């Protein structure tokens, strides 16, 4: 029998999830000297690119340009894309074990962590990820409704996602109209009555998770002022000592930008982005109809952990903030995949360096791997998934060398193709996506936008005359 990984029998790899990590893993596999690999990439959506399409903010087109790198990887003749194919439903783990030598899960962190406070489920309180997916035209979220008739909104958290949500809420229609934001979202935001958006950080400015370009950007919005309280961005003794010791230039710059904002006078723009620090929501307060009306905040101080990390500790000072809309962005976690061992606490697939582990024996499960956010939790930028995927691919190649792979009864690519098309006749190939992409870009050109997205699977099928 031929050795898998050769011309006679290419190593067959299934990648679940067409986000950045999946492409980086495919790239690492293709670039391995002496390894012949044939990759099928699956996504439950018809469209590829994961969070680059459905997560990265529409006013950050430059970041989305990373897709040109992914397109080059997808152009490899040994790469196939199967969009609109749901793992666990359209194809099962048993199906994949029957057709591939190795399976790689790269499904990302699809859901929000909860705040764990009373009132969290009141009407008007939403996970930030759903709002992000909504304004980016994700088919699963395009019919969600957000009541933008309130004048005050709060975003809990100060990572880049939180700041994206706050910025989109504050942008003028003229700023948004030139992006690829979903049409219905543009329309809803056109009628938005939001005046004030609070961005709430539980720790101080030196610990804020957002990056400097993002905080700088919100100081330059066309029709929204940035408001920062001077007393909240003065460094406490612990933070000052930490910053002075590390001399970390990015943190120094971040604090400098925020202290600069604190000196600004409001210029009378229509909206205000109010960036608060050292506060945590302890309760959402609703009216009789179950609608959020206000948020109770506790003031925090910072304390040093034994490792030197600064953590927020609640005081006994409270305040109430009138808000009708709340988005929580306090962390993300993965969603378990059917039949795949999951670590509930971390919200990731149970793994060691990317090898999926059996939950009882803690030994690797042969042929199953993971990479990206579903492997390590949500951290870093898009490119962080490249070294992460490399670590997993190294394990995959090592295991191939010692014969610890699956032995599928149908390793020939045509068998998998036939099975997938039978299970999901509406599946999208890479060529289908390329055609859809051209149509979206052409629709965009007509109205001077980067693209106009299809946001319903039925519309995507119809556009391809299917």
């Amino acid at each position, binding site marked *: 029998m031929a050795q898998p990984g050769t011309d006679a029998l290419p190593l067959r790899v299934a990648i679940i999830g067409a986000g950045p990590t999946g492409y980086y893993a495919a790239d690492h596999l293709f670039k391995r000297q002496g390894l012949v690999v044939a990759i099928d990439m699956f996504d439950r959506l018809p469209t590829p690119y994961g969070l680059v399409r459905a997560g990265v903010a529409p006013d950050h087109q430059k970041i989305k340009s990373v897709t040109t790198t992914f397109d080059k990887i997808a152009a490899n003749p040994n790469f196939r894309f199967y969009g609109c194919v749901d793992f666990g439903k359209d194809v099962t783990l048993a199906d994949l074990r029957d057709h591939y030598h190795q399976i790689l899960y790269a499904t990302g962190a699809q859901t929000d962590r909860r705040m764990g406070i009373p009132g969290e489920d009141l009407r008007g309180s939403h996970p930030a990820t759903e709002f992000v997916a909504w304004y980016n035209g994700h088919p699963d979220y395009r019919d969600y409704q957000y009541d933008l008739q309130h004048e005050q909104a709060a975003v809990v958290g100060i990572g880049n996602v939180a700041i994206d949500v706050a910025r989109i809420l504050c942008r003028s229609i003229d700023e948004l109209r030139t992006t690829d934001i979903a049409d219905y979202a543009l329309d809803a935001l056109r009628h938005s009555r939001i005046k004030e958006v609070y961005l709430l950080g539980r720790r101080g400015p030196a610990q804020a998770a957002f990056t400097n370009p993002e905080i700088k950007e919100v100081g330059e919005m066309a029709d929204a002022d940035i408001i920062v309280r001077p007393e909240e961005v003065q460094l406490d003794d612990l933070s000052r000592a930490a910053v002075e010791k590390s001399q970390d230039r990015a943190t120094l710059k971040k604090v400098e930008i925020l202290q600069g904002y604190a000196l600004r006078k409001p210029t009378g723009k229509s909206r205000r982005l109010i960036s608060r620090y050292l506060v945590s929501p302890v309760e959402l307060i609703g009216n009789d109809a179950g609608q959020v009306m206000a948020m109770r905040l506790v003031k925090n101080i910072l304390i040093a952990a034994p490792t030197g990390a600064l953590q927020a500790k609640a005081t006994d000072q409270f305040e109430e903030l009138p808000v009708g809309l709340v988005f929580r962005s306090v962390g993300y976690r993965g969603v378990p995949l059917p039949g795949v061992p999951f*670590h509930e606490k971390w919200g990731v697939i149970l793994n*060691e360096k990317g090898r999926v582990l059996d939950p009882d024996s803690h030994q690797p499960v042969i042929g199953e791997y993971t990479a990206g956010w579903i492997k390590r939790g949500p951290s870093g930028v898009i*490119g962080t998934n490249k070294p992460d995927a490399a670590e997993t691919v190294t394990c995959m190649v090592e295991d191939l060398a010692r014969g610890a792979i699956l032995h599928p009864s149908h390793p020939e690519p045509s068998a998998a193709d036939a099975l997938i098309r039978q299970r999901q006749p509406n599946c999208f190939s890479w060529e289908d996506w390329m055609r859809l992409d051209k149509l979206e870009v052409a629709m965009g050109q007509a109205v001077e936008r980067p693209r106009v997205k299809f946001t319903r699977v039925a519309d995507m099928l119809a556009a391809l005359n299917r």
Partner: protein
Amino acid sequence: MNIASILARKGPKVFTIRPEQSIRAAIASLAEHDIGALVVVDEAGKPIGIISERDIVREAAGNERVFSKAVSEIMTSHVIVGTPQDDLVSVGSTMTEKRIRHLPVVDKGRLIGIVTLGDVVKAQRDQYRGEVDTLQIQIMEEQT
């Protein structure tokens, strides 16, 4: 990035030893698992110390009978522990300054993992590599 992101891909394994066990047993465990330190735990599984290969070497340099000593006689008992939410910049600088190579991680008093200086360096290296890669792509895109 925080300690949780390291533990998530390290697997749940953390090797422990009891204080009354011998140094011989500690060495056997270090060799078997190819690691540099063991967390010393009490009956309840609570970390009460750490014993590293360096602790053992230092003792062995002046004591031929090191093997039969108890772990409790040599271990470092003032052990610094981390929590999953501790950020890696602080953790890395504290480990470097205090010359700590192994940091037990506890959650609500329970030992849930161990992080080495190598783990922290690797996580930070990967983060910086990722940032550089993402920035390069954006710059190249701007030039085309």
